[in-house]
């Protein structure tokens, strides 16, 4: 199970261990954490919610895209859901590759794709109110009311 949604705190080492292999010369690990201040606004805590079955499928799709694009790559991703406090770990992405440059690139690709296609939502509980966050790409999400084919493939 290299791609998981977890209701518990993420064991970072366990995610890394999934991509360890003899051919690998590099493992990059991205750890996404809960930040207290966003443009001056103070977060008290967050709730993450997922469409779990589909989210796991879409994480697997990202893994497959990466393995196709960067040869000899192994990927593991765990995203947490539920209530997270400031500094808690929300997501861990581990990528192993034969050489380091690919490892950095592939890991970056994984987090950007998560923000595009994986059905996980964040509800910010601010000092003064709460709000479901829209996409964090700071784009108008689907002006035609539906995704373009290229967004999903």
């Amino acid at each position, binding site marked *: 199970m290299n791609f998981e949604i977890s209701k518990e705190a993420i064991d970072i080492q366990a995610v890394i261990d999934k991509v360890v292999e003899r051919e690998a010369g590099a493992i990059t690990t991205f750890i*996404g954490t809960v930040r207290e201040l966003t443009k001056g606004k103070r977060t008290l805590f967050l709730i*993450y*919610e*997922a*469409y779990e*079955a*589909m*989210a796991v*499928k879409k994480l697997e799709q990202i893994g497959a895209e990466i393995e196709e694009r960067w040869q000899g790559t192994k990927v593991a991703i765990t*995203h947490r859901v539920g209530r997270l406090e400031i500094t808690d770990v*929300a*997501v861990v992405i581990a990528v192993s590759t034969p050489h380091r440059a690919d490892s950095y690139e592939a890991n970056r690709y994984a*987090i950007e794709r*998560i*923000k*595009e*296609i*994986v*059905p*996980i*939502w*964040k*509800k910010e509980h601010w000092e003064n109110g709460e709000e*479901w*966050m*829209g*996409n*964090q790409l700071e784009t*108008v*999400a*689907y*002006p*035609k*009311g*539906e*995704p373009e*084919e290229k967004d*999903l493939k």
Partner: protein
Amino acid sequence: MNKVMFFAHLRDAVGKEFLLVEAAGKTVAELKAEMAGTYRLEKMDTVMTAINEEFAMNDEIIRDEDVIAFIPPVSGG
């Protein structure tokens, strides 16, 4: 019969995780418009749809037993 699932702000608006409706023969766009009208759902122009856990386009036709999910802009990571 079709299961229609809601997430994030849509779930708050509908007040339920899912509804059971007869949607066979309708397009994604038709079902979306119907739900938006009934439950006064906001920002539906930015909401994607999944059929059986795969993203679907607005002109796709829903079949009996398909599981439909309305997917607001995602914000994981």
